[in-house]
């Protein structure tokens, strides 16, 4: 039984998601998504103008798995961690089996030498579906408030 979507279940999903990234358990990150899906990191300006391009763009779970594999095996970047701080989720629409929600986030990037900066703030625009005993993302559009990315974006938001 998939059960109905509730605010409590959405909050648990959000908490598990940021825990996965902040604890560097990226191999589990694709599991938060259905297949096909849409995961896109964009900016408020692009989102407003309807520009489709993403800083990261994945429309299958396979692309999310490949993103993690590339970060683990191919890409070179200084050791770093994120700390996600989330605001309260606002459920925009909920028919029990599928819901749309908006959740504000702030991400602090902590570099290996101790430098901490606010790396990104923004809004998760989610479409969430109840499947099996879990909630999964059908869509997660990460809308960053700023159009600027410092240095590079290795880890996903």
């Amino acid at each position: 039984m998939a059960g109905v979507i509730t605010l409590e279940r959405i909050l648990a999903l959000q908490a598990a998601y940021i825990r996965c990234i902040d604890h560097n358990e990226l191999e589990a990150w694709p599991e938060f998504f259905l297949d096909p899906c849409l995961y896109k990191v964009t900016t408020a300006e692009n989102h407003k103008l309807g520009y489709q391009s993403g800083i990261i763009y994945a429309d299958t779970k396979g692309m999310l798995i490949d993103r993690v594999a590339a970060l683990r095996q191919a890409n070179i970047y200084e050791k770093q961690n994120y700390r996600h701080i989330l605001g309260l989720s606002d459920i925009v629409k909920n028919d029990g089996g599928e819901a749309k929600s908006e959740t504000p986030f702030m991400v602090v990037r902590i570099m290996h030498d101790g430098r901490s900066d606010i790396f990104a703030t923004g809004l998760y625009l989610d479409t969430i579906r109840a499947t099996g005993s879990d909630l999964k993302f059908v869509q997660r559009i990460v809308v960053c408030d700023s159009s600027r990315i410092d240095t590079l974006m290795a880890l996903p938001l």
Partner: protein
Amino acid sequence: MVAVNVNVRTNGGAATNAEQPMEWPQGALTRVPFWIYQSPEIYAAEQRRIYEGPVWNYLCLEAEVAEPGDYRTTFVGAMPVVIVHDFDQEIYAFENRCAHRGALIALDSGGKARDFTCVYHAWNYDLKGNLKAVAFEDGVAGKGGMGKTFCRSDHGPRKLRIASFAGLVFGSLSDDVPPIEEYLGEEIAAKIKRVLNKPVVVTGRFTQMLPNNWKLYFENVKDTYHASLLHTFFTTFRINRLTQRGGMVIDESGGNHASFSFVDKKSSEHDYAALGLRSEQEDFALKDTNLLETIDEFGDGCHMQILTVYPNLVLQQIQNALAVRQILPKGLNETALNWTTIGFADDTPEMKSRRLRHNNLAGPAGYVSMEDGAVGGFVQRGIAAASGERAVIEMGGSSTTNEGTRATEASVRGFWKCYRAHMGI
């Protein structure tokens, strides 16, 4: 050769740390002194001699100012500028600085306007940057007002010359800059037209802030030597390019270049096999090989072309990911890299979707380019105490000419040849 005096920080008057002039080291173009990335005097001179000198600065795409009244704001080095499509169908650009007190005339990144009014004292400009009205010019009730000798046409922001080429809008403050086609050189011009051969549409804009001097990024883009060494995405996933050939062209000035790789077209099939891209080994294979599915959209088998135009433009084709990148200095140790991802107006839904997937290859999170966002900072940090030392740029000898290989630093040397000519050092 003119010696450039760069102040060396002295240490309590210790004799060994006396100020010394820094000169370009011997060894022609194969040595680059690190103070060139660190000196405030050099940074200031670059504004006058390069950005305001005889160069064509990339400003924006024609597509971004497509309609009369459309404007964008950007920079020529440090100088803020406004680019406008006027109702006479011409594109104009002028310094974004009110003639009165120097405030910005346009405050946002772009939009639509019939004229511009400075918010500070409401001085008003037409779309060509001509001063048209001064608030209270004749005073109020016969009192105040501008002096009798004041003439509006004597005042205004500096205007740029404009050159459009293949949908790219360039601006120059110099009367001595060659015509754009001559400036680009025949081969570079042809390689721009190869990609920008029909109307483009913007699909996204991002700014990547690089923690390094702008020259380190410009060199990085021209540097084909590092590509397969720093960027291991293709090799890690055993993505082979069968019968691949590569090459590079550099214009006569040395400032503009294009590097490219392509395969012999053996098949008319428009799939990744036709471009020789495939993942060899199952354990390292990509799960979703749609990332490799590439259309030979320019019909020549070239799946990658990276092109630069001195001093601030990169035109990118990586598979079907197309983008222009504008390089803007924001301080000695800070550079803004403005990405504009593009497609064509006649793209099919499948091609639009393909470009979105391929855009993962480049940009701040790009599989084959994210390292470039950081590597300039590694140099900038590495040379912190080495202003008297120099880089060795000797791969492929000392030439700055076209090479049949990409195992060369010829185009990096070309950059320095062009840079030193402009800077007079």
